[in-house]
C-alpha cells in the first residue's frame, strides 16, 4: 500500500514533466549574447539557445531572475564568456539550479575564454584597486581576433556535450571562422584611422580592441574598475586628457551618457558610444554586426574629432 502511495505521485510527475520526444535539439543556455550568437552560428538547428543577459546590460550587474533558474535546470550545456565576467549573477543561479552537468569543470560548462591569452591579470587582488577580475580582463569579445578563439572553444565544447553532432559543429566552426577572417581584413582597413588615437573609456573594457587596432587608452572615467567616478578623479582625468591631447571619449552603452559628455565638453574631445556586448547598440543582433557597429562608431567619432 505504501509503495502504491509513493508510486502514484511519481507516475503523475513523470506524466507531467517527463521526456518530450519531439524536442531533440540540444538545450544550450548562454550567459551573454555574444557567446549565444556564436553558439547559434556554429550549432545551427541542432541546438536551441536561450540567453540570460541582454546586450545593453552591464554584465557585472545582471538581475538574478527565477526564470533563469528553470532554464539552467533543464540545460544540456551552459556557454559562458568566462574569466569571471559573469561572477555577479551566474554563481548565485547555478547554486540553486540543481544541474550538476553544467557546473564549472563539468562537461556541460563551455568556457569561451579557454584559448584567450588574458591581459591585465592583476598583480594585487586588493579591493583598494576596485572590482578586479583575478583571471584577467574578461572583455576580450570586443576584439574580433579573440572572437575567433571564442568560437573554437564553443565548437569544441558543443562537440564534447554532443559527440554525435561533431560534423555539424566542425562545419559550423569552419564556415564561421572563414566569415570572421574575411571580416577581420575588412575591419582592419575600416579601423586604420584609429591607429595611434588617444582615448579614454568609461570602464576598462576596451583593452583587447585597443591593442588590436592601435588605440592608445590613457584612462577611464570610473575611478577604479567598478567604482564610480569621484569629482577628484574627474578633475585629474580632464587635466590629463588636456595635457596628452586626448580626442576621444568612449562610452559603453551600459554607462551614463551625461558624465561622458561632460568630460568630452571640458576637453574638446568627441564621444563615441559603443557596446561591450552584442545587442547593446541598435541593429547588432549578431556578433559580426556588434564588432562592425563599434568600429564604425569609433571611426565616425575619430573623423569628427579630426575635422574639429
Amino acid at each position, binding site marked *: 500500500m505504501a509503495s502504491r502511495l509513493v508510486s502514484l505521485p511519481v507516475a503523475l*510527475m513523470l506524466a507531467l*514533466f517527463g521526456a518530450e520526444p519531439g524536442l531533440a535539439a540540444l538545450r544550450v543556455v548562454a550567459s551573454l549574447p555574444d557567446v549565444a550568437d556564436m553558439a547559434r552560428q556554429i550549432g545551427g538547428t541542432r541546438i536551441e539557445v536561450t540567453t540570460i543577459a*541582454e546586450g*545593453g*546590460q*552591464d554584465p557585472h*550587474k545582471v*538581475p*538574478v*531572475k*527565477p*526564470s533563469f*533558474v*528553470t*532554464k539552467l*535546470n*533543464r540545460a544540456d550545456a551552459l556557454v559562458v564568456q*568566462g*574569466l*569571471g565576467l559573469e561572477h555577479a549573477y551566474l*554563481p*548565485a*543561479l547555478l*547554486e*540553486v539550479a*540543481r544541474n*550538476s552537468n553544467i557546473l*564549472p*569543470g*563539468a*562537461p556541460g*560548462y*563551455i*568556457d569561451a*575564454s*579557454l*584559448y584567450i*591569452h588574458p591581459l591585465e591579470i592583476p598583480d594585487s587582488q586588493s*579591493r583598494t584597486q*576596485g*572590482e578586479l577580475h*583575478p*583571471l584577467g580582463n574578461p572583455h576580450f569579445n570586443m576584439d574580433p581576433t579573440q572572437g575567433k*578563439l571564442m568560437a573554437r572553444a564553443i565548437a569544441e*565544447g558543443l562537440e*564534447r556535450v554532443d559527440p554525435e553532432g561533431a560534423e555539424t559543429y566542425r562545419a559550423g566552426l569552419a564556415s564561421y571562422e572563414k566569415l570572421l577572417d574575411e571580416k577581420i581584413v575588412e575591419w582592419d582597413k575600416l579601423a586604420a584611422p584609429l591607429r595611434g588615437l588617444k582615448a579614454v573609456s568609461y570602464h576598462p573594457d576596451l583593452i583587447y580592441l585597443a591593442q588590436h587596432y592601435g588605440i592608445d587608452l590613457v584612462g577611464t572615467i570610473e575611478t577604479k574598475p*567598478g*567604482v*564610480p567616478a569621484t569629482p577628484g578623479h574627474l578633475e585629474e582625468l580632464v587635466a590629463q586628457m588636456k595635457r596628452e591631447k586626448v580626442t576621444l571619449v568612449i562610452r559603453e*552603452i*551600459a*554607462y*551614463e*551618457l551625461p558624465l561622458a559628455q561632460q568630460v568630452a565638453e571640458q576637453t574638446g574631445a568627441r564621444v563615441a558610444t559603443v557596446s561591450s556586448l552584442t545587442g547593446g547598440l541598435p541593429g547588432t543582433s549578431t556578433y559580426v554586426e556588434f564588432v562592425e557597429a563599434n568600429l564604425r562608431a569609433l571611426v565616425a567619432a575619430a573623423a569628427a574629432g579630426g575635422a574639429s
Partner: protein
Amino acid sequence: MGPERSVSRAAALLALTALFSPGLGQAETPDNQISALKAELAATKGELSRTQSALEALERKVDALAAAPAAAAAPPEPRKLETARIAPVNADNPAISFVIDGQAATNTQGNDGAGFLLATGELFISAPIDPFLRGYASINGTTDESFNIEEAALVTTSLPYNLTVKGGRFMADFGRFPHWHDEALPFVDRPPSIENIIGGESIAEGVETSWLAPTDQFIQVTLGTYNSVGADRLFDSSEFGTMPGSQRSFSQLSYVVRPQTYFDLTDTMNLELGASWLTVPTNANRELYGVDVTFRHQPGTSSFYQGTVVGVEWLWNNEQFDNVVVGTDPTTGADIFGSGRFRRDGGYAYFESFFNRRFSLGARYDYAEEIFGPADRQRTASAFVTWQPSEFQRLRFQFDNIGTTGQDDQRFTLQWTAFIGSHSHGFAAR
C-alpha cells in the same frame, strides 16, 4: 662547410702528426714500423669514415629544415586547458566574509536621546564539503546579544528529481523577508510586523526539503519540520525532560509548507508570488499563514541601474497563549492571568526606486498587531534613502513615524554597512 673539406683537413692533420711524432723514430725494424703505421692508418680511416657519415646526416637535417620555413614560423598552439578557466581555490580554505553593520539612531519620544548600535557583526563561512554536500555558517554578534551561531547548515547538492535537503540551524523558508539576513534588507530594520509575529529572523533548527519543478515555469515547493521558527516564546528546552536538545512530541514540532512561483510579465517587469503556512498541531496549536508578492521593474537597457521594486507581505497568526494577562480585576486592579487563543495579523508594503548606480530611495508602511490583536497595534510609516559608494559599502538614512496607542514617535537612523571578503547575496536575497 661541406663534409669533403672537413675530411681533407683531418687527413692533413694526421699526416703532420705522423711526420713529427717522436714515438715513430724509436721503432725496432723498418718492417715493424711499416706494419704499425699501416694499422694506425686503417684505424684513422675508419674513424674518418664514421665522422663523415655523421656530418652527412647532420647536413640532411639542416637541408630539410631549410626547405620548410613556413612550418618553422608557425605560431605556437594556444595553451589548452581542461574545459574551463576557474579561479584557483584552496580546498582547505572556505569562502569567508564579514559584515559590519553599524547604526546611529535618535528619536523624539519615549527614551528620547541618541545611541549607537552594532546592528550586525557577522562572520559568514561557506564551502563545498564533498561532491554531494555543501555547508555554511553565520556567526553573529550584536550590541544586544553576544555571539550567536545564527546559522550552521548542511545543504545537499546532487539529489535526483530536483530535490534539495537542508538540515541544521538555518532561516526557515517562511515568507520573504523573515529569512533575509539583516544586512541584506532594503531597510535599516526588519519590518515591525515580521518582528512581532515571527520574532525577527525565521531561525529554526530542523530539516527542510525543497523541490524545483522541472518546467519552464518557475515553481518551487518547500516542506520543513523544525523545533520552532523564529523566536519561540512558548517552548523552552527544559520543559521537555532530559533528552538532548529540544525534544518534543511530533505534534509539538513546527511544520511549514511554502509554494512560490514567478512570472516574467514583460522583458522588464516581473512578478513573484509566494504563500506560506506554518502549523504547530498541539500546545500552541498555532496556525500562521502568509502571502508575499514582489513586483520588479528592471529595464534591460542603458537605464539598467534604474528600476523599482514593490513588495507586499501579510501574515495571519492564530495561537494559543498560556499564562498571559487577559484582563484586570475591577476591585483590586490586579492583572488577571489566563490562557486563550489570540489572533493577530500584520504586514507591510514598500517600494524602492533606483535612480542610478549609487542612489535609491523608498518608503514603507507597516501594520503590526501585538498579542491582543487590533487593540494593541503599531502603525509605522518609513522613508529611506540609500547611497552606495561602491559595491561593498552602503550608507542608508531612514525616518520612521511610529504610531501606537499613545503619542507618535519619530525615529531617525543612519546605517553604515560594509562587506569584507567574498560576500555574495546569493539567490535567496534577490
